[in-house]
């Protein structure tokens, strides 16, 4: 029962690109503007319920702005990744922290995805899937050149590994 007392997972070696903070900020800001904006517009149009709509709108706007300011910085400290010869290792989340480990020998596909916002910030997301439907590992917010290089490296390693990865 007492085996492994004090054993912990160490944080992965690499942090994301610092531009990821800006990318997350824009996402939070968009969300805040959309939600608070809809409420505010409704409040402006529906006179009888004005107070009931504008007060939540203001509250959500304040909350959203606070999230925009704080959470990305927080995330940046927590989100880390590492690729060794044997495995891909990623840490995400703060309230629900999650470590994902996928061994090289079981990787099936390596994708690079760039949404419009990510392109603006010259970032990419690398998605590594294994044979499990639940085992995909995402590294979001990498510099796009680094991401391409990483994807290429991962593809090379996994191609050199025999077996059908199940």
């Amino acid at each position: 029962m007492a085996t492994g007392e004090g054993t912990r997972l160490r944080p992965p070696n690499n942090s994301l690109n610092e531009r990821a903070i800006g990318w997350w900020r824009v996402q939070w800001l968009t969300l805040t503007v959309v939600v608070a904006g809809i409420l505010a517009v409704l409040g402006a149009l529906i006179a009888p319920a004005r107070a009931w709509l504008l007060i939540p709108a203001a509250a959500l706007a304040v909350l959203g702005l606070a999230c925009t300011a704080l959470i990305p910085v927080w995330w940046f400290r927590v989100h880390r990744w590492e690729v060794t010869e044997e495995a891909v290792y990623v840490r995400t989340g703060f309230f629900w922290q999650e470590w994902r480990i996928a061994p090289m020998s079981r990787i099936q596909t390596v994708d690079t995805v760039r949404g419009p916002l990510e392109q603006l910030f010259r970032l990419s997301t690398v998605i590594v899937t294994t044979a499990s439907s639940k085992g995909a590992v995402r590294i979001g917010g990498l510099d796009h050149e680094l991401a391409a290089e990483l994807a290429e490296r991962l593809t090379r390693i996994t191609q050199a590994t025999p077996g059908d990865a199940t």
Partner: protein
Amino acid sequence: MSDVPEAPGTSDAPVVPGAPAVPEVPAVPGVPAVPEAPAVPSVPALPDSPDSVAASEDGWRRLDRRTLLVTVVVMTGVVVGAGVPTGIGLSGALPPGEVFAWLLGGAVLLIGGGTGADYVRWRRTRYRMGPERAELHTGLFLVKRRSLARERIRTVDLTANLLLRLLGLVKVRIGTGEQTGGESTLELDPVTRAEGERLRTELLGRAPGAAGAPGEGMLAVLDPAWIRYAPLSFVPVALGGAGIGGLFQVADWFGVQNRAIHWAGDQFRGISPVWVVALIVGLAVATGLAGVVAALALWIEMWWNHRLEREPGGTLRVRRGLFTSRSISIEERRLRGVELVEPIGVRLVGAARVDAIATGLAQDDDAEEMDQKTLLPAAPRAVADAVAARILREPASPTSTVRLVPHPRAARARRLRWALSSVLLPLAVVAALGLLLTDVLVVIAAAGAVVLLPLAVLMALDAYRGLGHGLGGAYLVARSGTVRRTTVALQRGGVVGWTVRQSFFQRRTGLLTLTATTAAGGGAYHVYDTAEGEGLTFAAEAVPGLLEPFLIRERAAERPSGPGR
């Protein structure tokens, strides 16, 4: 491997009365005529005569022609089912002759159209089991061509409902290990039973091991006494409720739902409340009984004649079904473990069912597909363990022999907190409303607390007792759940990654949830709320080398701030 030309559909066809229902030409108005080959230039042209259902020279085969007969019968059933209520409904508004004419027209259109469409489908569908690939071409305008590499075919399942069985036909589903659902499945609907068996043995029997190797043969045969576990699931409740709902639906069709309710209401008037209560109780009992009977009937239909066997070459095969016969084959190479499932009712009487954890099993939401992975229906626990051991070719099942490490007390506190809050929060709302509005709600809340709180606490304690994990030989064993307790024995070699999760509250109490991802079954199996260090050590041991490089093994190591890249 060789495609022996044989004539499915003509060889052992039982004499079917009314077989001339197969038209030579689709003489159905409104159904487009079959376009000729130019639509798909690369498909090898088939000889035009519909009699040449046997393999053509290049190995292309057709489905069995009697699919048309099946369609006619099914459509006739639909027409009768829909036509009778419609006829009754219309008879009030129209003269009988006109009603009859309308119904007849509709019936001809439906049966003719359905059969014509099926004829086109039959004409345009062909399949071939080549040396390299299994191919299926189908579709009218949009020609779908699917081909599966023979070496990737993992399952060949045969099902036949009553109608198909009477005609000696089966539906064949050929699947690969992909989890992408329908795209990687070939469905041949229908072929003769002999052809289905031939496909099955040919496609799965490519690596015949030493015949009569240990562990082959019959692994489990259904004991009819196990039917006693059928009513213990949630099925009876659901079926009983569905029955009542169905009655009301029928009443609604005939426009008498309100009348029925009023009638019932009238009966109650002037009767003492004691009788009303007795009547309600009686009704509930009747519903329950109906549900139980339905559950028993369902069990018989599903599991009758159930046999689990291992065939030479390492394929597990389940055969079962009273009316609809099903044959499910799971290649042993695809098996990653077994899962012992104990729904609470079944568990209380000491029984369990055995599910396979295998890659490439259908993952559809379909209830029927869900049962594909069940290797043994609810049976006494000892039998389930013995069968699991035989399935895994182990002397004893890891699900019974591995000593499971219990989880820390913090996990119990967590479960108690969840249980109490899930009961107390709704009750608090009810009580608060009661204080504002009426005292009745306060009484209800108090009564609810008296009944539900002990129940919730019991369930939380039971859930905690159920938690456990351990390693046994080649298997990783994890147990959890109270309403549906599962004991998973997963091959350590089948783990394709680890996910470790820790919520804010788990972090404060030193717990974490481990998730072994795998290509098989549900894709992920959880070990909930283990002690932080012990759980990580367990995960590292279970899959040597994977987690080890990322662990810190000393006490009170300060959190390194990790240099950037």
